[in-house]
């Protein structure tokens, strides 16, 4: 399972963070909540997540699968 964390600021804006997704599936799997809430700003891929993706790709190359 992936995780969505929504943090609601008192100025009416919402910070959406996703964890535990592979590739860009985090965007498609959680876009419904952005569409429901309003207008979306800039999307930032997390550095540590990019690192996880890199490690996953390395494991796939080595024949390891999830």
């Amino acid at each position: 399972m992936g995780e969505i964390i929504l943090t609601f600021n008192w100025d009416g804006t919402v910070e959406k963070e996703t964890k535990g997704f592979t590739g860009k599936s985090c965007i498609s799997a959680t876009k419904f909540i952005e569409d429901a809430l309003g207008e979306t700003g800039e999307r930032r891929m997390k550095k540590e997540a990019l690192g996880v993706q890199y490690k996953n790709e390395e494991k796939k190359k080595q024949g390891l699968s999830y």
Partner: protein
Amino acid sequence: MSHTVDVSTKITDEECLVKALCRVENQTGHIFPASIIERHKDPTLLNLYGSHRTVNAHIIIRRPNLGHGAYNDLGFVKNSDGSYTAVIADKYDSAWLQRLTTYYGVEKAKKEFKARGIKYTETTDDKGRVQLKAQVKGGIYG
């Protein structure tokens, strides 16, 4: 992969707006009971003290319920695009509207999660902000 994104909340859902009005503190430090919130299918006249404007709204709280010093009704007008515009005055200012919008976002997100059968928890972070955490299919482990 994971990501973060900021979303500016837009009020479009009547049910969630009413729930938000029942959560946000009013100017007397209390919350509004649902029973005093008028919901109109057709726009209804707001009482605006000393104003020559005629404003009709769909969601209304009358001024006797707004606390001491309120001279005007509080209302929300539904626009043709489905969004709501607030008609606020007196002590119900932009800061209050921002807090209302925040609670609206919380209620709207909870409604979307429930509609999809997604389990969530509601907590408060160390800065006093409301947080929702939800488990969603499509992650590494499911």
